[in-house]
């Protein structure tokens, strides 16, 4: 009896070779395509609806300029958050504060302490990198809970930034160096293009380099990575440091473009950053955190808010939209993950 049973048992163990008929394969392809590009479709529909609802107001060059010039700060922060999320460090809450800290240090050193633009910018970037390194020491080396460490670090840094700026908006006097952010190409600030380059470079690293492969494996399973000879803690540590670096560079570019920074605004970035990163898991590579999806997420969310504001809704709409989008995005991402694993 066991021999027969044995055979019976073996048969279904062998996975079917491929979709046998063309029909299910087409269905699979359609579903595959839909799950990759659904959000982009929604984006297009959203633009269409706004254009119809506000003829002559929404579908204009100025709207597009406003969408694509304003969000570079968010792009940098989202990429910084992505660095640690990719390697499985789930919630680095300190990203906006590290960004805000660097964005305050630079103008304060220049305006209040009469430093040169460039040395002050370098110090600001180093400060952000150091913040990332402190996070890394606490989380990776000492094994302290990530949420607690980054929440504490975030609040601490925001507090320090407020103290340095005396609760004021700190202004940077133009001296030519701000061109690194305000130079325009085709009517858009160069900062916008930095964001694109950063997202593309990040996507390249993840897809095509050994480092990116290691990062994704560490995010998928630390134990499997360790037993395969990947230096897991080095990669985790490095992610925090690079997250600090991206935040610092992003801060310098943002302040150069804006000409000033308000330390109190840091915290308002937290939710949009998370919303964009999680929304990104529903774009291009479903169920997976990915830079290009995140980049699209940033602009998708802002399009939605801008349209609603143009419709006459007030400032509160951004809270509602970002908050709602975060919950929806996390839900979608969870469902997609469940389907793929």
């Amino acid at each position: 009896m066991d021999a027969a049973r044995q055979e019976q048992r073996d048969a279904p163990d062998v996975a079917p070779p491929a979709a046998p008929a063309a029909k299910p394969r087409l269905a699979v392809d359609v579903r595959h395509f839909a799950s990759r590009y659904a959000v982009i479709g929604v984006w297009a529909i959203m633009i269409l609806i706004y254009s119809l609802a506000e003829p002559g107001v929404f579908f204009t060059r100025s709207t597009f300029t406003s969408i694509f010039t304003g969000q570079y700060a968010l792009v940098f922060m989202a990429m910084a958050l992505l660095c640690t999320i990719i390697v499985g460090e789930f919630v680095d809450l300190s990203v906006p504060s590290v960004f805000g800290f660097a964005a305050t240090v630079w103008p304060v050193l220049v305006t209040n302490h009469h430093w040169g633009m460039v040395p002050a910018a370098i110090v600001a970037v180093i400060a952000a990198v150091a913040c990332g390194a402190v996070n890394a020491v606490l989380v990776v080396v000492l094994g302290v809970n990530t949420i607690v460490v980054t929440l504490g670090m975030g609040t601490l840094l925001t507090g320090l930034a407020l103290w340095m700026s005396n609760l004021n908006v700190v202004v940077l006097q133009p001296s030519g160096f701000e061109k690194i952010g305000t130079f325009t190409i085709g009517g858009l600030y160069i900062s916008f293009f930095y964001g694109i380059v950063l997202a593309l470079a990040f996507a390249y690293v993840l897809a095509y380099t050994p480092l990116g492969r290691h990062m994704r494996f560490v995010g998928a399973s630390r134990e499997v990575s360790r037993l395969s000879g990947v230096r897991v803690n080095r990669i985790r540590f490095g992610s925090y440091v690079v997250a600090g670096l991206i935040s610092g560079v992003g801060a310098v570019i943002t302040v150069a473009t804006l000409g000033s920074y308000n330390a109190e605004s840091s915290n308002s970035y937290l939710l949009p950053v998370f919303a964009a990163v999680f929304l990104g898991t529903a774009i291009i590579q479903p169920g997976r955190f990915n830079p290009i999806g995140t980049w699209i997420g940033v602009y998708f969310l802002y399009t939605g808010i801008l349209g609603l504001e143009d419709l006459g809704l007030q400032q509160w709409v951004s809270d509602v939209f970002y908050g709602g989008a975060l919950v929806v995005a996390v839900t979608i991402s969870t469902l997609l993950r469940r389907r793929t694993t």
Partner: protein
Amino acid sequence: MTISQADGAAGAAEPGAARHRLEVAHLSKTFGPARVLRDIQLTVAPGELHGMVGQNGCGKSTLVKILTGVYTPDPGGSIVVDGRRLRTPVQPMEQREVGVSVVHQNLGLVDDHAVWENVRLGRYQARGPFRKINTRAERDSVAAVLARLGRTIDVDAPAGTLGAEDRATIAIARAMQDHRPGGGLIIFDESTRALGKTARGRFFELVRSLIDGGASVLLISHQLEEIIEATDRVTVLRDGQVVETGIPTKDTDEAGLTRLMLGRHLVTHSRVNSHAQEDAAASVRGLSAGQVRGLDLTVKRGEIVGLTGLMGSGFEEVAEALGGARRAESGELAVGAATLSLSARRASTEHFVRAGVGYVPERRLDEGLAAGMTMSENMTLPRVRGKGSALRTGSAWQAEEARTMIAKLDIKPPRPDAPVSTLSGGNQQKVVLAKWLAGTPNLLVLREPTQAVDVGARHDIIDAIREAAKDGCGVLIASIDAADLAVLCDRVLVFRHGTVTGELSGELDQDDIIHATFGSPRPEPRDEPKQEEKQEERWAG
């Protein structure tokens, strides 16, 4: 409770008669493409201590999770307790009503809470307008349960301050507090693991007293020794199926159970000549890890060495230390041109990988493969930095490795971009093996390489391991599977309490290995043909 009672109960299987405490019939469970339980049949008589054994991954814990309502079984199966058929998924309240409870592996105690709080957790009776817990009544009821067990434990002591034996008592008290006297079923899911030797003895006294009171016990354990000593009847699971159920324990022994757990494999591999060469592939000096003290071992190029013993005898630690998976207390491993410290504080598996050590772990989805990544990505991971440049992983060599390995191990489906989670267990195991074979290692360390894989996959895996040896790789196989060791190994080291107590070499026979493992004398030659016949029958019939 005697065996004859149990036999009597098991014999009277008229439908509808509530002669069984627990009756499981036609129970199956499917996860996605994988069927992890198939047509499980099992009965436990009132007042019986029923043992259940099987290798890791055979479905024991899935069965427990179905019985406790964590998983929903496939339609068609039934779970009957004292004649009452339970709804599936099993509802916690109904489960409590019929008196089925589980003591889990880690006992499930909250250390900094008092004994009475641990026992009553989930059952607190709230009283009065403020829904206050009646502390005194709760404590009294706990004291009463402990009295039923014949134990006195301070109900106010934090659980964490108690010894192992008392902790087990608390867990049992929690499990049996709702049972009617003379009824109920307690499932012990590997719960004796946490107990020391003396505590284990008392634990079984306690279990005996429960049974004398009329309760039934289903004891799931890896310790065949205690199954043989303590239980009345035993059920053996293998690959999600019941191999045999209700074997009276007095009619079997540890070796017999091991044989049933592992099965006689249908595909008989003939032994091939050893490929062992003169020079050493790896040599170990002074390895101390866990119970093992000062082990020296040399593996020649092309030699396949088996490490075996009872579970917990130390052979597992040796494999983990040599594979770079755990830090040993001391020891050195010379492999290829490198000499690795096995106890380095910053021992990084990376050094092992670079020296050409491949490690196939026991739990493939926790330690071997990232389920969401593709077959090719998993396979090439150890070499992606060495073979790629900083800016490109390089696709040609990856495609080549995947193609070669898919052909060599007959991996199905043959799609390198398939996520590993979509493969069957046997094919996943092939991918773990391929991950290391593709790098032509100097030393390959494998733990239970054919565990929970089907016959065809086993065949392919055995062939691939042999071929690696032929190519000059030293192979260490740590396994309890005597059949695997017998067909593959040039010699087998048998561990007991951390020391090598036997070395078998030459023409190996799986019965020799099993008897060396359990330290039991080999049965008289005249018994042998009879036993073989019985086995053949079981497989052929």
